[in-house]
C-alpha cells in the first residue's frame, strides 16, 4: 500500500495537539493518542467510555524508543525477534523515569507494549517523537473495528481524523504475553500460543484472570448487542447463522466466516461479520462450532465474551438495617436468558435483595454487577435501568390515568422508540385494547395486573425482576400471566429473577432455584436436583423441609 504523506502529516498534526485519531493496524483499528500526554490519554478513556482500571497498550516504532520506558529481558528479545512487528503485546516492567502517562498504566509499574506491523501505523510512529496509546477504536465492550468505516460508525464526528489503511489483515486483537515474571498468556490473539511456546521453549496456556490487568478481559466484551448462541447445530428463522464451512443450501441469514474452515480467514472476517449482522437487526446470533485449535481458540474466546450479555453477578452482598442483618453475604450469578427462582419464607430478605438489584436500596457491603457494570455507580444506574423492568403486586400504576396514558408515561420514561405502535401491540397482546381509555383504578385485579405487565414489558427488558407477580390472582389470570411471561422470555431471551411463593409457578418457569432463609442463600440448583437432594416429592415439600430445618 502506498503511503499518503499528506494523511500522515495530518495525523501527526492532530496527535501533536493531543487529539485522538483512528489509526489502522494489522489487528484492528486503534484509537490513538500521545502516550506521554495525560490530556490525550484521558480523551481516549472518555471517548471509549472505558474504565480507568483498564490499562492501555502503547505502540512503538522501534526497540530503542521502547527501551526508554521499559526494562527488557531475554524472553522478550526472543519473541521480539520472531514476531515483531506483529500482533503480539508484551507486558514489561516500567522504568521509573518513563514519561508514560499514569492514565495508561492505571498507576501500575508495568506497561503493555506492541510494535504494529501495518505500514501506515509504522510510518506514522516513525515521524512521531512519542509512542501511541491505542486501544481498539470502539466504545468499550462493543465490537472492535476493522475498517475506517467501522471507526466512523463508532465515534462519528467525536474524533477529528481516521487514517485509512484498508481492512485490518488479522482482524483480531494481539496476543498478550506477560513477561514481568514467569511468562504467561493474558489474552489470546492474532498469534497462536503454540507458536509462542516454541520460541520460548515452554508450555504456556491461557487462563482467564479475575482482575483486569490487560485490555479485552472483561467478561462482557466484543458484544454485538444481541444474544449469541454458540456451538449451534440448527438455526431459527429470526437468527443470523455464522458458519465456517460451506453448506449445500444457502439462506439469506447465513454468514460465512470461511467456506473451507480456514481459521485465518475466519479470524479476519469475525468482527466484520458481527457488525454486519448487528445492522440487520436480528434477534439472536447462532454460531456453528468452531474448531478449538490455533486461531480458533481466539475466535471462540471472542465469541464467548460476546455471548455473555446482560448477566447478573452478585458478590458478597449484605444489607444491615440498624442492627438487623437482612441480607447476609450472598453470592450468585444469573446467565443471559436464564429464569431463576428466589424462594424463601416471608422476611427472609428476597425483597431487600431485589431492591438492591434495582438500585432502590444501598447495600451495606458487596457488589451488584449487571452486564459487567456496577449498579451503584450513578453513571451506570440509568443505562442499566433502561434495560431492566420490575413487577410487584405491592407497587401500582397511577389509578387516575387511563391504561393508554400510563403506558405512554412509562414508554417515555424508558425512551421507547415508535411508542404508539408499541403500546398498541402490547395492548392487543395482553387483551387490553377494550380498556385503553378506562382509568387504571377502575379495572379488576386481573386487568390491572395485565396493565402492570404491559408496563414491565414496554421497554422490552433484557432483565425482568418479578416479585410475586401472580400473588392474589385467581388461577385463570395467574396462568395467563405465567404463560405470557414464559413465551416472552423464550422469544426475547430475557433474563428473569422470580421471587414467588407459588411452587408450581417456580417449577414451571425456572431453570434454577435459590433458597433463601434468614438473609442467606442456603441452597441452589435445578428444581429436580433440589427435590432429589432433599428426598422429597415436589418443590413445595422441599421448600417446607428447607425452611423448617
Amino acid at each position: 500500500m502506498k503511503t499518503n504523506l499528506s494523511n500522515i502529516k495530518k495525523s501527526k498534526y492532530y496527535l501533536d495537539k493531543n487529539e485522538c485519531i483512528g489509526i489502522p493496524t494489522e489487528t484492528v483499528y486503534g484509537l490513538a493518542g500521545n502516550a506521554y500526554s495525560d490530556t490525550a490519554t484521558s480523551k481516549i478513556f472518555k471517548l471509549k467510555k472505558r474504565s480507568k482500571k483498564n490499562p492501555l497498550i502503547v505502540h512503538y516504532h522501534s526497540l530503542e524508543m521502547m527501551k526508554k520506558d521499559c526494562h527488557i529481558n531475554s524472553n522478550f528479545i526472543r519473541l521480539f525477534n520472531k514476531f515483531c512487528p506483529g500482533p503480539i503485546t508484551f507486558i514489561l516492567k516500567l522504568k521509573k523515569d518513563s514519561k508514560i502517562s499514569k492514565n495508561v498504566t492505571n498507576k501500575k509499574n508495568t506497561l503493555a507494549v506492541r510494535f504494529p506491523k501495518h505500514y501506515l501505523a509504522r510510518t506514522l510512529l516513525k515521524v512521531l517523537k512519542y509512542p501511541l496509546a491505542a486501544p481498539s477504536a470502539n466504545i468499550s465492550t462493543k465490537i472492535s473495528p476493522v475498517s475506517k468505516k467501522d471507526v466512523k460508525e463508532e465515534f462519528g464526528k467525536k474524533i477529528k481524523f481516521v487514517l485509512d489503511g484498508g481492512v485490518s489483515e488479522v482482524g483480531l486483537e494481539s496476543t498478550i504475553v506477560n513477561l514481568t515474571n514467569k511468562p504467561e498468556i493474558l489474552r489470546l490473539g492474532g498469534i497462536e500460543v503454540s507458536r509462542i511456546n516454541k520460541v520460548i521453549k515452554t508450555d504456556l496456556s491461557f487462563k482467564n484472570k479475575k482482575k483486569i490487568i490487560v485490555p479485552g478481559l472483561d467478561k462482557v466484551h466484543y458484544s454485538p448487542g444481541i444474544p449469541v448462541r454458540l456451538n449451534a447445530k440448527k438455526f431459527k428463522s429470526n437468527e443470523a447463522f455464522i458458519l465456517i464451512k460451506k453448506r449445500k443450501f444457502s439462506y439469506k441469514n447465513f454468514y460465512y466466516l470461511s467456506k473451507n474452515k480456514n481459521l485465518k480467514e475466519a479470524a479476519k472476517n469475525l468482527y466484520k461479520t458481527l457488525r454486519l449482522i448487528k445492522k440487520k437487526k436480528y434477534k439472536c446470533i447462532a454460531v456453528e462450532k468452531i474448531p478449538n485449535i490455533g486461531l480458533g481458540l481466539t475466535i471462540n474466546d471472542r465469541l464467548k465474551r460476546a455471548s455473555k450479555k446482560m448477566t447478573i453477578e452478585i458478590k458478597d452482598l449484605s444489607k444491615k438495617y440498624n442492627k438487623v442483618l437482612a441480607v447476609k453475604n450472598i453470592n450468585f450469578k444469573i446467565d443471559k436468558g436464564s429464569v431463576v427462582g428466589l424462594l424463601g419464607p416471608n422476611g427472609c430478605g428476597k425483597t431487600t435483595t431485589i431492591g438492591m438489584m434495582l438500585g432502590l436500596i444501598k447495600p451495606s457491603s458487596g457488589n451488584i454487577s449487571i452486564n459487567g457494570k456496577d449498579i451503584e455507580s450513578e453513571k451506570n444506574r440509568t443505562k442499566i435501568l433502561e434495560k431492566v423492568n420490575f413487577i410487584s403486586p405491592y407497587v401500582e400504576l397511577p389509578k387516575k390515568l387511563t391504561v393508554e396514558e400510563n403506558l405512554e408515561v412509562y414508554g417515555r420514561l424508558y425512551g421507547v422508540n415508535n411508542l404508539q405502535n408499541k403500546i398498541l401491540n402490547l395492548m392487543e397482546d395482553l387483551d387490553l385494547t377494550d380498556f385503553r381509555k378506562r382509568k387504571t383504578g377502575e379495572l379488576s385485579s386481573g386487568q390491572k395486573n395485565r396493565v402492570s405487565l404491559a408496563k414491565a414489558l414496554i421497554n422490552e427488558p433484557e432483565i425482568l425482576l418479578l416479585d410475586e407477580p401472580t400473588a392474589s390472582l385467581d388461577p385463570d389470570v395467574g396462568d395467563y400471566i405465567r404463560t405470557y411471561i414464559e413465551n416472552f422470555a423464550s422469544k426475547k431471551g430475557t433474563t428473569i429473577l422470580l421471587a414467588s411463593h407459588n411452587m408450581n409457578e417456580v417449577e414451571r418457569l425456572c431453570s434454577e432455584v435459590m433458597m433463601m432463609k434468614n438473609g442467606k442463600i442456603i441452597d441452589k440448583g435445578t428444581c429436580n436436583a433440589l427435590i432429589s437432594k432433599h428426598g422429597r416429592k415436589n418443590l413445595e415439600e422441599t421448600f417446607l423441609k428447607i425452611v423448617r430445618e
Partner: protein
Amino acid sequence: MKFYRIYGLSIRHLYLIKGSFPRILDLIYWPTIQIILWGFISQFFTMHSDYYNNTVGVILSCAILYDFLFRSSISFNMLFLEEIWSRNFTNLFVSPLKLSEIITALTSTALLRTLIGIVPAIILMNPLFGVSLLKMGPPLFLLFLSLYLFGTTLGLLVTSGLLRFGPAFENVAWSSLFILAPLGCVYYPLSILPEWLQIFAKSLPLVYLFEEARSILVNNIVNYKNVITALTLNLFYFLGAIIVFYLAFYGARKKGTLVNMGE
C-alpha cells in the same frame, strides 16, 4: 438529562389534571377565594388607613404574590405526594429517571399547576376591585421568578423529608409555608417585627420581595437592590435545597424507605 424522560414524568401529572375537572376547579378555587376575601379587606383598609390611602390594592397585590408562592410550593409537594398516594413511587424510582430529571419535571409541572390557579385570580382582580397587578411592570416578572424559586425550594425541602422519613412527613408538607409567613412580612413592613426577629427575617428573600412590592405599589419606585438581594438569596437556598434532596435520596436508599413507600 434527557428531555423525553422529563416530558414523560410531566405528562403523568398533566394527564391527571386533564382527566379531572374537580382537580382543575380545586386549583382555581382557593386563589380566587383569597382574592375576593383580601379584596374586601384591602378596600376597607384603603378607606380607613393613612398608610394605604394613596394606593388601592397593596394588600390585595401582596396576597396574590403570597398565594403564588404558596401554590408553587404546595404544587411541588402535591406532585410528589401523588406518587406516594398512588403507590407508584417504586415504579418511578426503578425507571431510568435521574434525580435531576425528577427535579426538572416537578419544577416545571408545578409552575404550570400554579399558573392554572393564579392566572384566573389575577384576571379577576381588575373587574372586581379595579386593581391590576400588571401595572407593576417588568419588576413583577422578577418578583414572580423569585417567589417561584423560593416556593420550589420549600417544595424540595419538604419532599426531601418525605423521601427520608416517609409519608409521616406529609403534615409538614401542608404547614411548611405557614411557619415562614410571619417572618416574611407579607402584609406589613419589616419594622413591625421586634428587632431580634428582624435579624432572622432578613435572611429570608421574602422580606425583600414584599418590601419591594409595597415600595413599587405605594411609591412607584423600583429598588433593584432589593430584587437582586432576593434573587441571590433564592438561588443560594435553591442550590442548598437541591443538595438536601440528593442527600435525602441517598439517605432513603440506605434506610430502605424507597421500597413500597405508600399509604
